[in-house]
């Protein structure tokens, strides 16, 4: 008797990694894969990976919907970037697009089918006041009404408190570096600005090495790995693309990661991308570490309905995210303030 195969996050990963060899033919398995892909914001990516693959006809409408949604997400993201560019037309410094918007603006594979929420940009830290002023003039407004949160962002974070546009209802995160100021590593933000690459629109994207470093920082050195499978997919696409374009990329990346104090984050991301998505990495990068199993467990923590599982692992990574972000005394003060206001804890 064959046991019914239970859909899992691992099956989704296998399907993304090698679409033609892992196409399920069972409706119930697809139901699970679709739920997991939606929960991990990977349904658009999956749909793109399967465009030229023979899939059961009953799945096609779901995948076509995801492609329509991704197309719109792309258009809206570029539109928002354009709005920010116009709002900052009189700003002399560089405006660097980050994450999803950068990937679609640069036409990178990582942008194919990607869901994109907020617009993330980076400017020089000294210019934050000027840039914020211009955005407020153009219709963006503060989201966080709480003075503690507002001050927290301004003193300790790598970005301004989020702004939302009052007419279009879209958020913008204005960064001045890639990790909170209180985190262990201090990336070299000035170097990122100096080496940024200009697009035809006049906006900038990071250099390939910096883009990879930022992706790794976002994935491994900040946050609790929520959306980790998607961010790891970004990593896989960026590494695959830039290292095949430039054989010297691994060495450059190694050096750049060191400069940004992100060696561990970059190596760890590359290893997991290699492990899950089959990214080709040099043998020197293929070493797992003591924590690899825990990271993998967290990355794949979904049940066959797309629900969250492994509460203990999730909780541990949530605690880790705060630990990474703040020194212990500060963390205690922060949690105390948040607790009195009635709202700390995952979700």
């Amino acid at each position, binding site marked *: 008797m064959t046991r019914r195969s239970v859909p899992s996050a691992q099956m989704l990963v296998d399907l993304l990694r090698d679409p033609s060899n892992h196409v399920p033919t069972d409706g*119930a398995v*697809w*139901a699970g894969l679709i*739920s997991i892909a939606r929960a991990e914001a990977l349904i658009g990516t999956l749909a793109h990976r399967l465009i030229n693959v023979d899939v059961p006809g009953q*799945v096609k*409408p779901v995948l076509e*919907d995801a492609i329509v949604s991704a197309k719109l997400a792309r258009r809206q993201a570029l539109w928002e970037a354009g709005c920010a560019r116009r709002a900052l037309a009189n700003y002399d410094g560089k405006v660097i697009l980050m994450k999803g918007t950068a990937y679609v603006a640069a036409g990178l594979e990582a942008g194919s089918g990607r869901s994109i929420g907020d617009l993330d940009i980076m400017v020089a830290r000294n210019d934050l006041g000027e840039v914020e002023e211009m955005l407020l003039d153009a219709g963006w407004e503060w989201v966080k009404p709480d003075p503690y949160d507002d001050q927290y962002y301004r003193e300790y974070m790598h970005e301004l408190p989020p702004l939302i546009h009052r007419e279009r209802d879209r958020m913008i995160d204005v960064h001045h570096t890639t990790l909170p100021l209180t985190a262990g590593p201090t990336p070299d933000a000035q170097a990122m600005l100096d080496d940024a690459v200009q697009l035809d629109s006049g906006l900038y994207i990071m250099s390939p090495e910096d883009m990879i470093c930022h992706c790794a920082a976002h994935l491994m050195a900040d946050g609790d790995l929520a959306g980790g499978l998607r961010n790891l997919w970004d990593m896989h696409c960026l590494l695959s693309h830039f290292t095949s374009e430039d054989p010297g990329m691994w060495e450059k990346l190694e050096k750049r990661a060191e400069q940004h104090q992100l060696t561990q984050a970059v190596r760890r991301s590359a290893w997991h991308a290699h492990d899950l998505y089959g990214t080709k990495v040099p043998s020197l990068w293929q070493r797992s570490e003591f924590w690899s199993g825990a990271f993998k467990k967290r990355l794949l923590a979904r049940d066959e*309905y*797309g*629900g969250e599982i492994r509460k203990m692992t999730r909780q541990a990574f949530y605690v880790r995210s705060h630990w990474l972000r703040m020194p212990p005394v500060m963390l205690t003060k922060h949690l105390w303030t948040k607790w009195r206001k009635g709202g700390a804890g995952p979700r």
Partner: protein
Amino acid sequence: MGQLHELFLKIGPARFRLASTWHRPLEELESLYRDYPALPDQYVDFTVRLEPEKPWRRYIRPSVHISGDYWLPDAAPLPLAQGLLAAEMGMNLQMALGWRRHLLLHASSVEKDGKALLMTGLSGSGKSTLSAMLGEQGWRFMGDEFALLCPITGNIYPFPRLISLKNQAIAAMEDIAPADRFGPMMKATPKGDIRHLIPPIKALHAMEEPAKPALLLFPRFGYEPAVREMGKSEVFVRLTQASTNYVALGQASFEALTGFVDTVPTRAIDFDSGKQVIETIDTLWNEHL
């Protein structure tokens, strides 16, 4: 959460997997959806999850948290006795947030001679009850909640889920529909008293058949009877507000909706009794065909 109980349902073009910690809500659904087409291959568009709000709430004062592929962060849990309502809300949520194949209009619809009458308005306007009543009086019931406007053909596709009767509408329908088509009475839910009604069998058999939109009404219950014309721009704006995926479909929805507003005659009708408004609807229908 481990293995959940499962049920697969097809309503119009949409296919659902319902996964629940408890057997009971699915048992109730299965009985009420008994005449709907089966979904033996288990391919679905959406999953709805009904799980305890906190682990111990599976047994102690069980309360149902609604989630699924698409979810709202602040959805209030419901007591297990209202699990059926939770499942219906979960399915509506998937449609409202996730459906992309049609422009979703928050409207009821009925069909006659291949042509569709749509009724839209705020909740409490009477659109759902009117569609249920017309469905018992010669019209084909197409849906009491969502009308699906195809952006390519301009046709309306049915979404004939269970009819969700509220408050006074329950007694009104108990007078004209057979008792074996009613679900359990759910008193004092967050939406008032609710009782589900299985649509007429003819509506279920024709759940894949579209109709050409021929008349749009904005009914309003509890007002002095009146019929008013409406400007196209007002109709357009109100329909964008009545659509849950207007923005998500981008240009396609703008074109579908302007086409709809240009071709479908529209009236606002106020009414205070069911009998009188049905006569008004018949008159308007005959005038516009």
